[in-house]
């Protein structure tokens, strides 16, 4: 991938990061607010047309019919026009209309949309930092192995192959499980990113090593060595050759690690309530007794799917699934 192509390919990822930063500001409700009588409330439909004709987007407030059966109806007598940029919220409805639940509510009556939006930063953030960490470790290890060759090269690649063969989900599970099970959200964030970087670097290292080893034999590298360049200067000259590879790896690793975060949090070893990530939210969705009636609980799964699809397409690797080869050591 050339430089311009690499920059273009990174645009969707850059967009995703910007979206993750901005998303919490778009949340119509506080993600931790539990609304009474809204357990598993369905998504509110936004209307633009009623008996009187066309009008600005509005919703009807929800009224609980039957708590046991979780049945709700729309109060057609009180249309509530969506208000924009008031009370510090981008979109909201007047307070007497109750919460604005555009993607429905979860078991505790919390707004699913707001929780997806505020969870974006955690899920995407861990994946991006984990991927960058893996690229860093992989570039250093691969650069050393390819640049020096010899016994060090063999040993480093032996370690890389060893980690590569392990199914990454288990590596992360074992390492995370061996640590205290309850940790503060900030600690979990750093820890997961570090674990992901640790389990995903070998694939990067292998690729970088192959590229650097091939470049080392080129004339410019020979000339640099002949003129007395040390290892660091040599690698500074050699590593740019791997930049296209690193861009593709980044675009494959972020979706792979996003899925890894979802898995770990889903198993209860990642972010825990109330600091929910997309994976944490999926715990609610896996409840067999409600899933059929509350498919909106799958919203975080849809978000993950979309991000994986877009990043995967932008990487240009069409055949091999990102979660399969990209973070090969993570979710293979």
């Amino acid at each position, binding site marked *: 991938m050339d430089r311009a192509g690499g920059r273009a390919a990174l645009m969707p990822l850059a967009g995703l990061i910007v979206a993750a930063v901005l998303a919490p500001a778009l949340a119509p409700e506080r993600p931790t607010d539990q609304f009474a009588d809204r357990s598993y409330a369905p998504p509110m439909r936004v209307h633009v047309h009623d008996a009187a004709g066309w009008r600005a987007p509005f919703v009807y407030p929800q009224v609980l019919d039957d708590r046991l059966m979780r049945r709700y109806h729309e109060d057609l007598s009180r249309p509530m026009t969506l208000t924009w940029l008031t009370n510090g919220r981008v979109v909201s409805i007047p307070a007497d209309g109750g919460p604005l639940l555009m993607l429905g509510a979860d078991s505790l009556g919390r707004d699913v949309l707001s929780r997806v939006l505020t969870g974006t930063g955690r899920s995407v953030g861990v994946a991006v930092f984990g991927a960058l960490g893996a690229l860093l470790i992989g570039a250093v290890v691969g650069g050393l192995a390819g640049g020096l060759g010899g016994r060090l090269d063999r040993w480093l690649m032996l370690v890389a192959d060893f980690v590569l063969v392990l199914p990454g989900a*288990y590596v992360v599970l074992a390492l995370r499980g061996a640590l205290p099970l309850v940790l503060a959200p900030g600690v979990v964030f750093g820890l997961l990113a570090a674990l992901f970087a640790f389990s995903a670097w070998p694939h990067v290292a292998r690729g970088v090593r192959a590229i650097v080893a091939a470049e080392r034999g080129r004339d410019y590298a020979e000339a640099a060595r002949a003129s007395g360049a040390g290892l660091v200067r040599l690698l500074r000259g050699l590593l740019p050759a791997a930049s296209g590879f690193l861009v593709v790896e980044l675009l494959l690793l972020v979706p792979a690690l996003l899925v890894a975060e979802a898995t770990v949090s889903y198993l209860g070893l990642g972010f825990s309530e109330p600091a929910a990530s997309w994976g944490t939210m999926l715990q609610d969705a896996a409840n067999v007794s409600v899933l059929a009636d509350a498919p909106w609980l799958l919203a975080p799964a849809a978000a993950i799917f979309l991000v994986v699809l877009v990043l995967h397409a932008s990487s240009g690797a069409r055949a091999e699934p990102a979660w399969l080869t990209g973070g090969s050591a993570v979710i293979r």
Partner: protein
Amino acid sequence: MSAGLGRFLIRRFVTAGIFVLVVSSSALVLARLAPGDAATDLLLSRANATTIAQTRARLQLDRPIVWQLGAWLNGLAHLDLGRSSLFDRPVADLLRERAARTATLAFAALAIATGLALPVGVLTGSRPRGAFARIVTPVSLALVACPPLLGALGLLWLALATRWLPAGPGSLAVPVLALALPIAAAIERLQSQATAEALAAPDLTAAAARGVPAARVLWIHAARQSLRPVLGIFGIVIGSLFSGSLAVEFVTSWPGLGRLTYEAIVGRDVFLVAGCALAGGVLIAFGNIVADVVRAIADPRVAETW
């Protein structure tokens, strides 16, 4: 090839043995280093000191890590994997039950994925602009982005909402499809590209010019050549089946090795953690050897590097 194959297999089995030993030993050490142990529950329930001491002695938790590792390796030499503190049963029995269930999932998924994807890939690769390819390709690209965790949740919803699939406990449809579909999509894409490339190569044009029937060119000549790149990813697929089955087993309440590993780690069951790592390591090492042998049969050049 046979002499080479023998030597290759011996070398691979030796490395696999070392791999399995390293993985299970590190798992045991990791489980011991983790904060809390199997006697923590007793401590929390304010059992008296003697009971706690007895339990810790029985589980060898009062011994140094190195001693316990040595004892475990010694037991392993006699095919004794110790006793699970969580289930109060021999680890070997638990592993036999659970590993068989995970292997069932993995094999069924692999069989379905391969059986479905190879012929479909040949068809889409032979006519990339045909109506069939136009439908299959986007579906494949979408499924490729649908890892088993998401697939399992989506299929579970489909099964519950439409009853098209059985969703009861012990039913195979949801877990197997969730594992199989993304892998099938990946193999289909690879097979499709490989078939298209093989058909474009001059030797197949020559075969067609000699009057070899088109179907034979496609299904015999092109298929054989395209097998090589496709078989290359099977080693990766085996790892992905294991990782994927962890999530799938949780979503569908499938009592396999993945859930057992999780329970063992969270329950600080030292011998069970080591046993699970051992079983997983054996299955992965074995799967990788099989994948390499199959690849060598399809492509003799691989065998020459042994």
